[in-house]
């Protein structure tokens, strides 16, 4: 008897001729995710991915880790035995006993065989094992519609049995959908937005704007920590840190106060787009959410959108704040996001920010500035950090 972990992937099956490409990406990401589990091997057989060589005491942690890899649909701990009916029955009883914990429970056995030479067909095998289980464990009852315990048996080159299928994050393997640049602020929304796009198979780079001396090293560390949490799902990624102080001071001196936030956002978008092109990103991602703050009204979004030509993904646009917070808690970024360090957006906040900039208004204000030179200057000081998932660090 040996134990292995079975990884099922969902949506990839939809992808006709591209399928090998998606599978390769998934395999690579799985290997990367399992790096802390020394000795773990990822193998593909019969259109399934199996993970072998995980120490029994690490199995639960490995399953949890695999469940966070985008593209994985569900994960099961599997017992493999030889194809004798007695060995299958013995393994089945062990698994059911473990799942039922000696308490009354309903169960169902489901069998499949790809080895058609196996003497029993699927229905017969399920009935046989179910019968033996009922006889051996009197506290069991059969329920074929909504069983509490579902025992699966698959007969292939060996027989594989499992009871638990842990639901994973789903989505598509990171890297199969190109790359995009996330504007990561340090707040609650942007990590969630990045997560959602990464889950569609997109590799994410992050850009963060800081305003030293108005923002501190603690604020920077917070953003690094957020990116590190995201890397737990998205894999290793790059974080670009842009010093934004000079632009903010220039806007403060020369820009009309109500427009400060919108002008600032326009500069951020310009810089992010430039970095995106350099890194071959096909889009920008923001955590913007319609109506949340003055710079996120439809008019303001139009004004900030106008300065870039690549698509801007705003996956949170129609969410409400509570919904975003719930997702941030699920992902694990919430507690870090709410640490109280100023970010560059809370520096020089106008008393009465414009919520409905008139068309042409921001352009008029910018006409007095050397916009290109300001963007160039900011780009020349970009610092790029490599972010790896925390568990890969040691």
């Amino acid at each position: 008897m040996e134990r292995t972990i079975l990884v099922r992937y969902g949506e990839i099956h939809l992808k006709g001729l591209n399928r090998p490409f998606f599978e390769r990406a998934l395999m690579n990401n799985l290997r990367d995710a399992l790096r802390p589990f020394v000795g773990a091997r990822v193998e593909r057989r019969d259109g399934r991915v199996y993970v072998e060589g995980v120490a029994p005491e690490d199995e639960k942690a490995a399953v949890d880790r695999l469940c966070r890899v985008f593209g994985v649909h569900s994960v099961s701990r599997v017992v493999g035995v030889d194809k004798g009916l007695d060995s299958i029955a013995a393994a089945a009883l062990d698994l059911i006993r473990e799942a039922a914990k000696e308490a009354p429970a309903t169960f169902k056995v489901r069998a499949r065989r790809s080895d058609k030479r196996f003497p029993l067909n699927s229905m017969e095998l399920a009935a046989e094992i179910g019968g033996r289980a009922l006889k051996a464990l009197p506290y069991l009852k059969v329920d074929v519609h909504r069983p509490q315990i579902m025992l699966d048996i698959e007969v292939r080159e060996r027989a594989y049995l499992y009871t638990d299928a842990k639901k994973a994050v789903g989505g598509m393997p990171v890297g199969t959908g190109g790359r995009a640049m996330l504007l990561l602020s340090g707040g609650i929304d942007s990590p969630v937005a990045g997560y959602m796009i990464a889950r569609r198979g997109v590799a994410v780079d992050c850009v963060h704007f800081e305003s030293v001396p108005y923002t501190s090293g603690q604020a920077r560390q917070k953003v690094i920590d957020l990116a590190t949490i995201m890397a737990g799902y998205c894999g290793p990624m790059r974080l670009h840190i842009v010093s934004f102080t000079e632009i903010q001071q220039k806007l403060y001196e020369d820009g009309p106060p109500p427009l400060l936030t919108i002008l600032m956002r326009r500069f951020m978008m310009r810089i992010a787009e430039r970095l995106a092109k350099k890194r071959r990103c096909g889009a920008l991602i923001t955590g913007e959410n319609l109506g949340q703050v003055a710079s996120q009204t439809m008019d303001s979004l139009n004004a900030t959108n106008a300065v870039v030509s690549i698509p801007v993904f705003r996956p949170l646009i129609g969410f409400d704040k509570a919904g975003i917070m719930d997702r941030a808690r699920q992902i694990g970024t919430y507690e870090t996001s709410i640490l109280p360090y100023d970010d560059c957006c809370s520096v020089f906040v106008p008393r009465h920010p414009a919520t409905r900039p008139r068309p042409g208004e921001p352009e008029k204000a910018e006409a007095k500035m050397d916009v290109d030179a300001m963007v160039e200057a900011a780009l020349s000081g970009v610092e790029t950090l490599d972010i790896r998932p925390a568990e890969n660090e040691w």
Partner: protein
Amino acid sequence: MIYLDNSATTKPFGEAADAVDRALREDFFNPAAAYSPAVQLHTRIEKGRAQMLRTLKADTGKLVFTSGGTEANNLAVFGALSAMRGRDRHVVTTTVEHASVAGVFHTLEENGYEVTWLPVDAHGALRPDTLKNALRADTCLVSFMHVNNEVGAINDILALSELTKKHCPRALVHCDGVQAYGRLTPNLSVCPIDLYAVSAHKFHGPKGAGALYVREGVRVAPLFMGGGQEGGLRSGTSNAPATLGMLEAARICYRTQRELVGRLSGCKRALVEGLAGIGDMFVNGPPPEEGAPHILNVSFLGVRGETLLHSLEQHGIYVSTGSACSAHSHMESRVLAALGIDGERLLGAVRISFGAYNTPAEMPEVADRIRTEVAHLRRYRRM
């Protein structure tokens, strides 16, 4: 780099760091063991203990080695009160104590003690007449700091302790000496202080070491139960590396105290002179020449302390804020508020604290940098 946050921690003396290193690599023994290298280590520590006790001019009494200032303060107050036999439940402290003392008194309050929190004067010092009015027949412990860590106010510990003993002979006097030891080391043969706490890393020793002086005859109950080290007052395998580092730092401070204080006050004087003429600048706490030689707390109106801190940081100058503040949370300084400081002056406070590695010669550069940064930041007053 010009490091001016010596009230937060100091860079260890090279000799102190060497002593720690040697103890870690070579003399790694448990000083309680019976073979000769361990016995020699034990002997060195005990000799050092006696010498350090002498720096406090204490011929009797004992010095208990702890993990630092916080533990020393906790052991002093909790330990002394729990060893008391009487029923008295009135204790006295001030509103400007360090968190390791204030926290202890808050806990005492929750546990049925009556705490009198005494106000301080506009410079941050406790006045003897304020203390006098608070003393009662059932007062069993009085605690005040020697030097305030935020503004550098120096308490008249002789007057305060004598006054306490005069009116409440049975009350114990605890003094948090963390910011004073090594610079303003007290004479405990004259001052009737019963418990005096120090921390090694504030006087160029290593982190993780501190000491509590306990006057002869004063009973203290331990906080930790275990192997009975430190005369039963502090169980736990003795931290020989940190202790030897502390003893080395204490020795250097003792030998060079006069020179050290001269250097610290020279730095302070030079910086104050360099800052002269900056408009809307306020010194918080005592006037520079009256406060501790190593602490200067100043506010520049219109500039947040935190912002100035980070802009000096960009030029390799490290200071601290009197009050950390952000748009989301206001953690204003309790001490400055107790001194009646508020508004822009409270938000603008920065604490500049000097150490043995600073020189008066580098202060003009610091002053010029502050002048430039303040002028620059004042152009962008935040809305």
